[in-house]
Structure formats: structure tokens, C-alpha cells
């Protein structure tokens, strides 16, 4: 009897180790924060138009608007209005403001008098289907560039939404797209300020 109990104990310990190993492997290693950068020195930022890799033409503008508003609402930075950013893009003559070079980032930050520039790539924005279940999914990655050298000082990505166990079992259509967008932005803001 005693031998049987010890046997179960070994099995439980082995399962626990396997579980822990599995969790460790699933952690995304793709976020970056420059540890030498003093983020408190950044008072104002310009959010450039996001690169849109989705089929929805206006999706990037929708997500950018949410991000700009939510970033301003944190009161950590002053976020330049999009009209002013657009004026800066025109004055700097950026052909592809979604993917600025280091020189272009420096140039636009000088024109707009900001301490940092944020660029983004919208990778997913739409509905995913699996069997009879469907749900909204948003995937966004962001980069923050400092203005002296135009180097990346912070980078993170987030994917939210998608089909959950509840969606599969109950057949619900997931959360509205705006809600999922807010979750993505919140997740990225948490990563920025952690």
C-alpha cells in the first residue's frame, strides 16, 4: 500500500515538471525594452500611421485612433493630435510614414518637437472561423523610437480575441471588434509601463 502511494507521488511530480516546462516554452520572447533608456524623460510622443497588413483599408486608422486616445488617457505622455502629425509628415516629406528610417524619425521629431515617435504594424484585424464558431481577432505590434539617434527603445506585440472554449461550446460570436482592440491596446500599454 505504501509503495503504491509513493508511485502516485512520482507520477504527480513528473506531471508538474512537464506542465511547468510547457508553460515556460509558451512565453513570447519578442518584447524588447532598452534598459539604459530613461523613459521618464519622454514627455511627448507622435504616433505615426500604422502599417496595415489586413484586408480592411481603414483598420489601421481605427486602431491608431484607439491607441492614441488610450495612451493620452494614461497621462504619462502628451500625444500629438493626428492632424498635427499629418502636417509633420507632409513637412518632412515622408513617403512611407508607416516605416520611417532613423533619419526620417529624427527629422519628423524635430519638426513636431516630440521626444519619441511610435510606429506600429497591424497584423490581424478581422474574424476568424473554426467550425461553426467565429470570433474577432486583433494583432498589433508597436515600436518606440527615440529622437536623438532614431533607435528603437521599446517594442512589443499583442494578439487578443480569437475563439475561446466558451465560443466553441456556446457558439457565440466573440466580443465586438472595438472591445478586442481595446484589449490589445491595454495589453501593450501594460507592457510599456511595466
Amino acid at each position, binding site marked *: 500500500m505504501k509503495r503504491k502511494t509513493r508511485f502516485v507521488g512520482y507520477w504527480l511530480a513528473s506531471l508538474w515538471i512537464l506542465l511547468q516546462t510547457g508553460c515556460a516554452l509558451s512565453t513570447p520572447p519578442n518584447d524588447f525594452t532598452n534598459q539604459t533608456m530613461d523613459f521618464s524623460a519622454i514627455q511627448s510622443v507622435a504616433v505615426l500611421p500604422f502599417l496595415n497588413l489586413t484586408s480592411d*483599408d*481603414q483598420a489601421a*486608422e*481605427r486602431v491608431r*485612433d*484607439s491607441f*492614441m*486616445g*488610450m495612451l*493620452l*488617457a494614461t*497621462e504619462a505622455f*502628451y*500625444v500629438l*493630435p*493626428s*492632424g*498635427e*502629425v*499629418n*502636417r509633420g509628415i507632409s513637412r518632412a516629406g515622408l513617403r512611407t510614414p508607416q516605416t520611417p528610417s532613423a533619419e526620417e524619425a529624427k527629422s519628423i521629431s524635430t519638426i513636431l518637437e516630440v521626444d519619441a515617435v511610435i510606429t506600429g504594424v497591424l497584423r490581424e484585424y478581422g474574424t476568424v472561423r473554426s467550425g461553426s464558431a467565429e470570433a474577432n481577432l486583433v494583432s498589433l505590434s508597436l515600436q518606440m523610437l527615440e529622437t536623438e539617434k532614431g533607435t528603437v527603445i521599446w517594442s512589443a506585440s499583442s494578439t487578443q480575441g480569437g475563439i475561446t472554449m466558451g465560443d466553441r461550446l456556446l457558439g457565440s460570436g466573440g466580443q*465586438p471588434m*472595438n472591445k478586442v482592440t*481595446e484589449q490589445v491596446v491595454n495589453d501593450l500599454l501594460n507592457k510599456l509601463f511595466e
Partner: protein
Amino acid sequence: MICSTSFLNKKTWVLILVAFWLAGCAPRALEQEKPEPLAMLGLDVTLQGPPTARLGSLQCAFSTSGGSGKVTFALHSLKAGIETVEFSGEQASWSWSPKEPGSYHIKATATDDTGAVIDSGWSAEYRFYPPVDADTLYAVLPVDNISAAKAPLTEIHLTLIKALTEKGLSILDHDELEAFMEKNRMRYTGGISAEIGQQLKDELGVDAVFITSLETWQEGDPPRVSLITRVVLTGEWPEILWMDSVGLTGDDAPGLLGIGRIKSVEQLLAKALDSLLRSLHLYRTGGYPTYRYDSDLQEMRMVNDAGLTADFFGTEVRGRHQPHFTYRAPDFDPAGRYAVAVVPFLNVDARKYSGEVVALHFVKQLNRYENLRVIEPGLVRQTMLDYRMIMQAGPSLANSDILASENILGADLVLSGKVFDYQGTRGISKVDFSVQAFDGKKREVIWTSRSYATGDEGVYFFDAGSVPSAHGLTTRMSRAVVDMLEE
């Protein structure tokens, strides 16, 4: 003699005498520096111009005596039991013109450096009437179609004129107005510029103009009608006097077995016009609800809360219509007096003219605050055309500078935004927009918010609580935003 001279020569005695003399002077000098207590000698109030809101004004001059150091003054007004500070500063005379009609009492307070406060006591009652009365001549501009659909605009225009005439209003002859529009090449009927406002006054003797925008027009099943109407004072500087809107669908109140359904769009239009005219009557009789800042409670309070507007202003805004996130600059004073320019919203992915529709809803909501003077959208549009302001991504600081310039529009706040969704003709209504407000003087964003909602949110049983029209949703959502901005 020698004795007395030697006595005077003794330095010690001279010093003692000087010390006594100084000691005697010192208390007297201190007594002279002690100020008299602050006292209010009087508050002179003189009415200038007619006793009508916006056109007439009260010239208030205060005189005080005494007080320590710098004395600052404040002019208070009392209306419907709500006291608010209209002006404050070192100036001892103010000219104050009430925005809304009503009975006002005036009081001045003075404060010195020691914190001593005195007041003049409330003045006698000054009654200000609406700038429009039984003798006012109105021009009814042709309906501006922002419904993105074909609509019988002439019929709607004539129905509106007929309804106004039946209510006893003096309306300028339609042919005369058409001749004026042709002569002055006036094509835009969604607002009036300063030039047109002056010409209407000088050439035709028109005192006020009805400007009507058709937001929704659908003749199918169910029919839908949404109208936004305002009355604008003509003259050198056109001002919005009254503004309201109505949005109806045939399915608003189906009742038992659908008996209450309205299937005719003409019937719906008549109902909509009736609601608007009831609201206008409220304004003309001084009972239109407005918001006034209560300086004691430090919050906005409603005046004439019993009056029901066409868009049911004053009813509770539910949580689902509140903005999903907001930012208000910490140094923004909601009680301040501001001139607000509302710029047409940028239409990102919504139906045609939705940017104009949402902007008009904000003009309507902001105009109900007594501390805000909303600039007539026609003036804003004319300025944007004159300065060739093209805003591909909303206003820039340079655009805001033009609108804020004292020589141009003098807007303290510039409100703009983006519309991402505006669906109200088929299926479930859906509205999604963001709002941004600049402080024109500080060149800073003072407000940002994002609002989105659908008409069926929170609806579980028999459509109870559903909002079938996009107009209804926009009204609720815009009101929630303005409430939060001004709270």
C-alpha cells in the same frame, strides 16, 4: 548762557532727545499704515440695449474703499436659484450679456490680500427676453440634405414653412428668399456666413433664419425621419439661438399587435415637425432647458428641467452610451466661459456626410450650456474655405491657430473628431466616433474620447430599451461626452 550751551553740546543729551522724538513718531507712523477695512461703496448696474438675451447687456461698475493690498472683484449672477460667477479679476467694471433668456440678479464681491470678502448684496431683478418675439421675421432656408439618400427636399421645406406659419410665426416669402439666394449666389443652406447674415438683415430685414438639416430619410418599411433644426440670429455675427433635433422610425412604439406602427413617412415627418415646434415654443416662452454652472456646488445644474425637448434632453444617459475611454486635461476648467468652434468630423469609414451629422449633434449639445458660446457652423465653414484649410487627418495646430485667432473666429476651444461607423437605415443602428478638443490659446489637446454603441446593446426582452435610429444613439452618445467634458 555758557551753562546752557555746554548742555546742548553734550552729545548724549542730543542723542536722547532724538531717540525720544523717534519713539514718539513710530507709533503714529504705524497707525497711518494700518488699512481701513474693505468696504463696498456700491454696485451700479445699467441696462444697455434691449432687455433681450445676447442683444442687451448689463454694465456693472463696483466701487470699494479700504482693503489691504490688491483687491479682486467677481461678478455673480443668480438665475433659478443657481448662482454662478460670470467674471473675476482686478477690473472694477464689467459688461455682461446673458446668453439665455430669464430673470437674473447680479451681485459683486471684492476680496483683498488678507482674504477679507465683502459683497454688494443681490441687485433688483433683470428680466431678459428671448431675442425672437411675435414681430420677428424669419427666413426658412431650403433643407440641407445630409442623409446620403434622395429625399423630397422641396416638399419637406414647404411642410416646415406651413407648420411654422400655422404656429403664428412671420416667415419671409419663399420667392423673395429664392431671389436673394440667386442674387448672392448662396448655394450652401447648412449654415450662414457673417456676410450672408448681414445681407439677410440689411436687404430683407430678416431677424432670424431657420436652418434645417435632413439627417435621415427612408420611405421603406419602417419609414425613418431625422431632422436637426436651428434658429440663427442674423446680423454681423450670426449666433445660434435655439437648436434641437428629432429622430423617428415607424417602429418606435409598435404597441400591442403592432397597432402603433407608423407606415407613412409623411405622417412621421408631421410628428417630427410637431416635436420640433413644441421645443421651439419652449424657447420662445423662456422655458427651454439649459445647463448652468453652480458655483456653490461646483457642478452643472439644469435650469427649466421640466421642459421636454424634441430629443428628450434631460433624460438619463445609460452606461452603455458613455464613452469607453476619456482624457480631460487636468487644468481644464469646465466652468470657464468659452467660445467653441465645432469642425466637421473626419469621415473615416462611415456613410457619406456622417462627419457633418455628428458635428451637428455636438453643436446642439454644447449650445445648451450657458457658459459656452458655440460658433455658428456656417461661420466655421466659411473660415475654413477662406483659409483653404484641408484637414486630411483632423485639424493641426496651425488650423487651430486660425480658428482661435481673435481677428478671425476667436474660438477658445476647437472640437473635432473622427466617425468610424454610422449605420441607421437598415438593421441594427450602430455609431462609432472619437472626439478631440483643442484649447486654442494653449495649443493643447484638452479632451479625447472614443464612443461606440449599437442600438440593441443591453436589450433582452421584447426590444425594451433598444434604440432603433442612429440619430437616437448619436444624441445619447454625444450628450454623454459633453456631460463628461463639462462635469
